[in-house]
């Protein structure tokens, strides 16, 4: 492969990372504040894709606008889910079996709703943007849709950072992430912040789902591979930090993009190289997940800022 081809792939990987970050960030805030590994995230992603699909096919609303519209709609939806289901869970510093199973059960319900409403055939959102591309030189061509999606994801992430650091709600969230007990002592309303956090997490899931729906075809089982990618990203990012998510997303996107085109070295009576067969590419996120968990359970961020840890 030539250097230009590598550059082409690198650009595509970075664009992908933007969407990945938007996809994982909702999970991170929910985990950080509530210590719930939100398996229903996959369901929300799927609903987000269908949400913009429906808006597009019925009302001819641009999918990008659809994705933005998903934010408030899913925010309310998430708060509702929290109010109906999540708030009953016993509080804990670490994820409980109960929370895992509850969210998993809810995912099953959402998936079923998907099958009941939309059937199990693959859908995709096709706009004029899908097929056109921006050309740089002769070798590099970037589909316009990827660019648009990337821009939307990045803008949203920046907005989230601002909410996180500038608003009352963001401060309460950060307080709860750092020390739930101290936060409540100084008057942070735990229930209310949790509810809004869950809404925020759901909003981002819906938004990211809509963006992903523009890039890939989807079915009601759409969320699962992305759920696992979200895990990888937030684990790489150290589970609780929003900026870590961006880092994790970039690492995953680059590894996925390059895994099948870069010759890998291996030793068998001398050094050889081989290419990973494309059919094995889906293994990458899962294998990476296990490897990362085992080697650096604190995530990439943990390598940079080791905090004081008391006995």
């Amino acid at each position, binding site marked *: 492969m030539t250097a230009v081809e590598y550059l082409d792939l690198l650009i595509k990987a970075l664009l992908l990372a933007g969407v990945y970050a938007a996809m994982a960030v909702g999970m991170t805030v929910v985990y950080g504040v509530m210590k719930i590994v939100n398996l229903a995230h996959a369901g929300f992603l799927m609903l987000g894709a269908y949400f913009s699909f429906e808006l597009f096919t019925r009302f001819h609303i641009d999918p990008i606008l659809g994705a933005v519209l998903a934010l408030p709609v899913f925010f309310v939806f998430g708060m509702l889910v929290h109010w109906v289901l999540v708030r009953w869970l016993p509080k804990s510093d670490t994820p409980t079996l109960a929370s895992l199973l509850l969210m998993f059960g809810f995912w099953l319900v959402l998936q079923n709703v998907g099958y009941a409403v939309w059937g199990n055939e693959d859908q995709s959102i096709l706009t004029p943007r899908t097929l056109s591309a921006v050309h740089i030189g002769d070798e590099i061509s970037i589909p316009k849709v990827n660019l648009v999606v990337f821009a939307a994801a990045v803008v949203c992430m920046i907005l989230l950072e601002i909410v996180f650091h500038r608003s009352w709600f963001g401060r309460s969230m950060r307080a709860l992430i750092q020390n739930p007990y101290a936060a409540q002592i100084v008057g942070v309303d735990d229930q209310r912040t949790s509810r809004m956090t869950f809404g925020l997490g759901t909003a981002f899931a819906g938004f990211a789902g809509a963006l992903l729906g523009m890039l890939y075809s989807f079915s009601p089982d759409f969320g699962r591979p992305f759920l696992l990618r979200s895990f990888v990203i937030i684990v790489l990012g150290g589970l609780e930090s929003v900026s870590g998510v961006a880092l994790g997303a970039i690492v995953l996107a680059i590894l996925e993009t390059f895994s099948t085109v870069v010759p890998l070295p291996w030793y068998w009576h001398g050094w050889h190289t081989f290419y990973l067969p494309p059919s094995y590419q889906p293994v990458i996120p899962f294998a990476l997940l296990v490897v990362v968990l085992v080697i650096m359970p604190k995530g990439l961020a943990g390598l940079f800022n*080791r905090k004081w840890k008391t*006995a």
Partner: protein
Amino acid sequence: MSILEVEKLTKFFGGVAALKEVSFDIPENQICGFIGPNGAGKTTLFSVITGAHRPSGGTVQLHGKDITGMDSASLVKRGVARTHQVVRPFKAMTVLENVQVAVHYGRRAVTRTSHAREHAMEALRLVGLDQKANQIASVLSLGEQKRLEVARALATAPELLLLDEICGGLTGAETRSMMDLLHRIREGGTTIMYIEHEMKAIMSVCDRITVLNFGQKLAEGKPDEIQNDESVIEAYLGKNTFRSAPRA
């Protein structure tokens, strides 16, 4: 003959040194107290010796054999057991079962359940919890939970027992019975390392006392020597203060 030799033990958390080159010997069959202001590194010292944390430097030797950085479970099998400042009973088990775990997996490694029950009852009798053997551990009072913690550690049949603030939050009578218990444990041939903030308790029971401050060894000696040591008084009360009753 010393049972434990600690040599230049150091532990960093991030960039902060919780222990700085602490060295001391523990003679066999004595009760050795460890005191120091909050954050002096006492609990960290215990955690590093018993394998809950890996030391950043230095060595720990048990009977002349290197045990530095060994995990808790192996250390228990070699006869080093500890209690925690914050009690951690298995709340969903009965008091007897709590202790039974220690008998099965401690130094004696008893296999037969009936034997294990007998040994466990023995430990419970020693701390005075035998009446409550069949109750669920979560219903015990704090004092009882502290005694359960001691009973569990004892049931592992340790040669060296590390006790971390077993009197915090206890009443005067409970504290006195705990001190009696320490003497009995020592008479049974177990060496004790003992952290306590309760000055009266620790001064009355210990043969020797080591004072830690800011992760370093400040002084070492018999209780009355420590009580009159200038640097110790300074560490506890600050400079230019008249000596008064040490704080609890």
